[in-house]
């Protein structure tokens, strides 16, 4: 499997990246780890006449923790996230999700920036970023702008990032309470049949806030405001779980594919969300 021919660039700074993007428009693509893009290029489903490798552009490989937020550079790999002890303590859901992405070899190369920017509904980080209410910083010729993750995804592979912009940073408000990232997949390395990201805050015996997002059950990741609201003020009992699952099912729109028919996807989505809420609640 040999991709179509392309020109390869490895600029040393962001100005170099942006000038190539400006010159070639949508004939140019940036690449971080390449583990989404290269397979697509090999299948000739992606045609990239000008490939810009970001590996030598500095300043995008750090994880910074402050009192109220986490900033993760776009080139931070899934393996970096798994190995970062302070990050795992501050936001354990990131490590829990990263461990369920692909396999060890892919996690050494695959980055958080590529995972969220690609816009593949099968990717796990976009759903997680809905749950965590993250924002993405993109840079273009006119400077930087921040886009909330919940407004970033428009359709499969279509995002609010312009072709001549580069996603540089993921910023996450420090998550609170119990957490869970539950993923049902056919085998290790597979995309989710259904996955759920849940953060829950408990006060006394009641839930005071909840955030629920789903992966690979629509052409974008789904933040379910109604499912989240269904838990608030409850003791997360059976009735609350039923209400949250019912609300979530209203928000997703799965399609039939080789992971199963729509009825099966809805069923699995319900099972996975119940497990995620139950586990997050037990940790809250």
């Amino acid at each position, binding site marked *: *499997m*040999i*991709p*179509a*021919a*392309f*020109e*390869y660039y*490895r600029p040393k700074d962001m100005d170099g990246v942006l000038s190539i993007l400006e010159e070639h428009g949508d004939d140019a693509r940036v690449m971080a780890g*390449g*583990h989404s893009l*290269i*397979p697509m*290029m*090999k299948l000739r489903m992606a045609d990239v006449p000008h*490939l810009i*490798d970001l*590996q030598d552009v500095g300043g995008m490989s750090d994880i910074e923790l402050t009192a109220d937020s986490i900033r993760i550079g776009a080139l931070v790999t899934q*393996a970096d996230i798994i190995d970062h002890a302070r990050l795992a303590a501050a936001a354990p859901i990131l490590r829990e999700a990263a461990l369920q992405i*692909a*396999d*060890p*070899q*892919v996690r*050494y*190369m695959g980055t958080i920036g590529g995972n969220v920017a690609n816009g593949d509904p099968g990717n796990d980080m976009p759903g997680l970023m809905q749950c965590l209410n993250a924002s993405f910083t993109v840079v273009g010729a006119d400077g930087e702008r921040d886009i909330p993750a919940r407004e970033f995804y428009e359709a499969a592979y279509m995002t609010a990032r312009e072709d001549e912009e580069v996603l540089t940073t993921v910023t996450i408000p420090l998550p609170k309470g119990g957490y869970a990232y539950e993923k049902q997949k056919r085998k*290790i*390395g597979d995309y989710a049949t259904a996955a759920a990201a849940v953060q829950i805050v408990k006060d006394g015996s009641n839930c005071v806030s909840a955030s629920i997002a789903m992966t690979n059950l629509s052409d974008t990741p789904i933040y379910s405001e109604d499912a989240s609201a269904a838990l608030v003020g409850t003791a997360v009992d059976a009735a609350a779980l039923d209400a949250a699952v019912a609300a979530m099912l209203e928000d997703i729109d799965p399609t039939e594919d080789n992971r199963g028919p729509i009825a099966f996807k809805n069923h699995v989505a319900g099972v996975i969300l119940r497990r995620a809420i139950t586990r997050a609640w037990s940790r809250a």
Partner: protein
Amino acid sequence: MPKKMHIKLNVNGKDEEFLAEPRELLIYTLRERLNITGPHIGCETSHCGACTVTIDGKSVKACTIFAAQADGKEVTTIEGIGGPDDLHPLQNAFKEHHGLQCGYCTPGMITRATKLLEENPNPTEEEIRFGMAGNICRCTGYQNIVKSIQAAATEMNAAKEAAE
């Protein structure tokens, strides 16, 4: 026609320089340009792990990285891990514990396992299975691969202790 690139790699301790099209995948560089045929092409879609090599300390599937991306880096293949006259403890353990049948996945398995044991010298069975999840074997059912890696870990730890 895009111009060829001047690429330098250090493969198994030896410097290599060549001109290649940017679209040349590292697995083809190794196998067809440098005649290093230990890394195999299995699925060629980044699933099976038969092409696993080590690049600057990371296990990487050589079918999913362009040689141009590896420019300036150190690459280790099974050939750099051990040979017929000086088997690596993992190679010896795979032989002793029937960790292979057809052998097609073995170079990738052992190359990945060297990194796994470097990061975790005392893995449990579960950690081995999780850490080897990027390598597929269609013969063994994995049981003997797990056994081989456990045996190699024991031997390597004993050797390290003896040296200390």
